[in-house]
């Protein structure tokens, strides 16, 4: 799967870069960041935001190439189910009852050369 040159540290750096890029993009759209990298025993939420009345749980996928498939393809049905459960857990932990919950995906492609490419998909599943 991983190429030899990609160390754990460089992978983490790539992920962090993607999340920063995503956050900037979403804020520019008028969303408000509520939480970052929130963890519990079931997993992690990359970004929790508020878009008007809607609670948005956002997954950020960053890739440096499409050799192992596009970032979009990495989000499977199982992962979406988990994100839905995590959204519930996050709301419970903060004693919030949002009228609506949405799950978004930000796919970031950062090739070795040239500009990065970002795509925001609203309301997956």
């Amino acid at each position: 799967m991983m190429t030899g040159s990609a160390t754990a540290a460089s992978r983490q750096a790539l992920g962090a870069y993607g999340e920063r890029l995503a956050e900037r993009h979403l804020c520019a759209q008028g969303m408000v960041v509520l939480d970052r990298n929130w963890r519990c025993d079931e997993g992690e939420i990359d970004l929790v935001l508020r878009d008007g009345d809607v609670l948005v749980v956002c997954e950020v996928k960053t890739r440096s190439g499409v050799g192992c498939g596009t970032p979009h393809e990495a989000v499977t049905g199982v992962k979406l189910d988990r994100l839905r459960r995590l959204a519930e857990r996050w709301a419970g932990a903060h004693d919030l009852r949002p009228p609506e919950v949405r799950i978004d995906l930000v796919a970031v492609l950062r090739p070795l050369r040239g500009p990065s490419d970002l795509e925001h998909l609203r309301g997956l599943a």
Partner: protein
Amino acid sequence: MPFATAHTVSLHGALGHLIDVQTDVSPGQVGLTLVGRPDPSLNEARDRCRMAVLNSRLEWPSTRRITVLLSPADLVKRGTHFDLAVAVSILAAAGTVPPRALAGTAFIGELTLDGGLRSVPGVLPMVLAAAERGLRRVFVPEPQAREAAMVPGMTVIGMRSLGQVVAELRGEEVPEAPPVAPMSGSRLLSWRGSERRDELDLSHLVGMADARYAVEIAAAGGHHLMLSGPKGSGKTSLAERIPGILPDLTPEESLELTAIHSLAGALEPGDGMLVRPPWCAPHHDASKTSLLGGGLGQVRPGELSRAHAGVLFLDEFPLFRTDVIDALRQPLESGEVTVARRDESVTLPARGMVVLACNPCPCGEYTPQVSENRCQCREAQRRDYRARITGPVADRIDILRHLTPIRPHDRDDLFGPPEESAAVRARVEAARLRQAERYAGTSWRLNGQAPGPMLREHWPLERAGQSLVDDAAYTGRLTQRGAARVHRVAWTVADLRGLRQPGVAEVQTALHLRTGEPLLLSALERRAG
């Protein structure tokens, strides 16, 4: 809009339904959903299409949710020929191909993983259906372009790969592609094949004037025929020569037969239109499905349909299974086969001549002449065997002939040397032409297919002839169905002789042919007119 529609055809028997393959490509959880009642072989199209697109160096919308609907959604779709339409419609929805280029065009073909276009059975009936629904252009696998081109008014584009199809749709120069190996079904052996039957001529059969005339009448009117006689009396030899005295198929028959063979996957790439009447001789072990059609999944035409407009020869007829014999009843009468399923009912044409051959007893040696009888069968066995022959199927046979082995003195033919097939074929052709003129505007073409009541009303016998039939029915020599059969055969005898209406002599001949009595010498003399 990320939406496109490509057309293809779904086959239900020889009926084609136009199918819209509608594709939507939009953001969402990545994946390809195929809806609209696909069967398993079609569901696999998802993987074939994806790999074929990627390996053709085209762009697959891998960051999008793809939804493909096969519409109308209530029809069950089967087969692998949807691949091309699915792939093209996805590419159009994704913007690789201009969606407008798909208008009025049908796409037929199976994709290989490297993007090649593979042949599929049933291209001719599919293209016929597409033409009927107003489509004017069709993409098919290259080896089947000739088959598709038989449909008038259709622009046929034969292609070897998905890459070529896409280039053509974009209006670009079509790239080279290696030919795709033809599907299974190459001819391994031609033993007793059609080549051998071309050598068979009616003139080889010396001393069988009666039987040769009976066969000529059967061929001229499309009458079902039963040949009975001990081993070596020439039943098979006679039957094998029938296709040789049948004229070439009419364009209509030719299209029907080619469509049936296309459905059966029995057409070879270079075959083109079938123009000669077919010959089918299934073994007596044959199942009902193989004879009438059916099978798992897609309905395959049986031997009865593959012999459409030709000859179906059932040798050793009483040895066929009882359910097979019974299933023949309805097709013999109506000239079509209906296979009913849970989801669909499929009707295929089956207007061939059926020729049945049987021995007089299980061992095949029995003759009524005691001095020559070498039969070992018990009387009960013979009775069982005969019961199968005289069942309801036999009642649907127009002409019955009892053959006897030729003895040396029979070889001196009373009417000179036997005629060649070509001369007989010319007479048969002329007789068929007369029938075609007479029955113009009706749904049947030959006397053998004409419904009895219609014949009695519009094409009656002369009074004297009719009373001959009535007498025979009154005394029990003929059943009611038998009387109608005699009526038909009498017309054929008259057509062969070029008469305006059957007279007493023609009815007499027809009566003898139906009841199995030997023909009168005077009838044989009149044969050539």
